[in-house]
């Protein structure tokens, strides 16, 4: 089988499941379609020979974040027919925001002609762990460290929020 046909198949599947995330009536179904979308994106990473990103995508997004999403939605027990409660103003605002984002994205892609990888300069091992680590700790060191600081702040905030008040018993 051609590699491009796999790509087309995966892309179609990704788009389809991403659309299903939006159109599914049941929030649980939405989350499950989102998980499936992440798997499709991981498939794309494999096609790009970036296995490390594939694994991290599955571990972090599908394995942890989506489980928490599912967890919260199950806990809240959202009813199926609640979208009716939203006013038409909310719907209008939502479509305006999403539409302008789409316009911006399209404009961006049209302006920056992304260079196609040429046969000569293409390195198949860019996505491997070693190269990724090299890049992160040399070229992108500052953003990387800034992101760790951001995570640290978020962690401290979460601990503060989750901390037991004096005299309160949770169990």
């Amino acid at each position, binding site marked *: 089988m051609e590699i491009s046909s796999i790509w087309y198949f995966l892309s179609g599947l990704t788009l389809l499941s991403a659309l299903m995330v939006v159109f599914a009536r049941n929030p649980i179904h939405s989350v499950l379609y989102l998980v499936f979308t992440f798997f499709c994106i991981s498939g794309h990473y494999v096609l790009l020979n970036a296995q490390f990103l594939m694994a991290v995508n*599955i*571990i972090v997004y599908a*394995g942890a974040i989506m489980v928490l999403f599912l*967890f919260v939605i*199950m806990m809240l027990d959202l009813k199926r027919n609640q979208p009716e409660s939203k006013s038409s103003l909310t719907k209008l605002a939502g479509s305006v925001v999403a539409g302008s984002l789409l316009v911006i994205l399209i404009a961006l892609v049209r302006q920056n002609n992304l260079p196609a990888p040429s046969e000569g300069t293409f390195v198949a091992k860019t996505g491997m762990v070693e190269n990724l680590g090299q890049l992160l700790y040399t070229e992108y060191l500052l953003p990387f460290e800034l992101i760790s600081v951001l995570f640290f702040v978020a962690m401290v905030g979460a601990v503060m929020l989750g901390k037991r008040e004096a005299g309160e018993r949770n169990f």
Partner: protein
Amino acid sequence: MNLLTDIFLAKAAFIGAVFAITLGIAAYSTYFERKIAAFMQDRIGPDRAGPFGILQPLADAVKMFMKEDFIPANSNKWLFIAGPCLSMLTALMTSAVVPFGDTVTVGGVTFDLQGIDVNIGILWVFGIVSLGVYGILIGGWASNNKYSLLGAIRAASQNISYELAMGMAIIAILLFTGSLSTKAIVEGQQNGHWNIFYQPLGFLIFIICAFAECNRTPFDLPECETELIGGYHTEYSSMKLGFYLFAEYINMFISGAVMATLYFGGYDYPGIDFVTAQFGSTVAGFVGMGALIGKALIFVFIFMWVRWTLPRFRYDQLMGLGWSGLIPLSMYNVVVTAFGILIGKPFTAGIVGFLLLIGGMVVYDQLFVKKKIA
């Protein structure tokens, strides 16, 4: 092209064999679970089906298939069916990257005794383990039963909590090996340089997390009978329930194999050089496969031994152990390991770090903790 086909066929045969071995061991784990439980309680255990009851798994399977397959009226039908299937799928997928042995040559074809040797092997294991909770979560929610939902939610929070400590314990191993490939991890431990000697604390953390990830006692709160009837599989019956139970035993065996790979030298065994010299590398490879399976089975025994010894934790104790016990410990372990590698003496650093930990805890205990009045 012919060689490629041969390798492909050999791989297919090997994967089929691993599949069959895993399923067979899982089936017989149910029998040995009951036998071991019986022995530990001074009983005999199942002994009616066949000599010593060895046909018991067969009888159990027939029973499971014959029972009424029941789907609750208000459940979400497709997700209800998908739950046990996902559990089974994720349980079986992990074994793909476990290196069962060194290279062997059969009929002129040389191939690895490993499903796939990807350079992210250990991350693959980790990823699949983190997906394992979906089966429980979906099944528990789709049952449309409050107890099932509670079990599913417990499973989710428990798995996420213990994944963190597990990942940290693995990071210490990766510092040693410098590779994510399971094959490289095993090759780094050949000739008795098993990671358990360098990482006793890491192994302790890992095995505790493995218990939690497999939902085994003392961490089997998702199926806690005294509080939640049956937990996430309350509404399940027939072979769908069988799949859930079976997935647990597969997980046990696979996590035993992973622990052997990470900490006990994988397919390494004492006297491997002698066997290689006497009988050739192919025989040595197959003996190594046996050694790995033997190690995994020892871990399965330990799983069962613990199950029939310990009562289960209370839920806040479980969370406390995971978040404020194991995660700081595993961070400490990573720091000590990194320091040991930095000064070039990992073994000494590991021992000193362990002793420092114990000493620090004793000092803290003497200084700050109010003593019991005896």
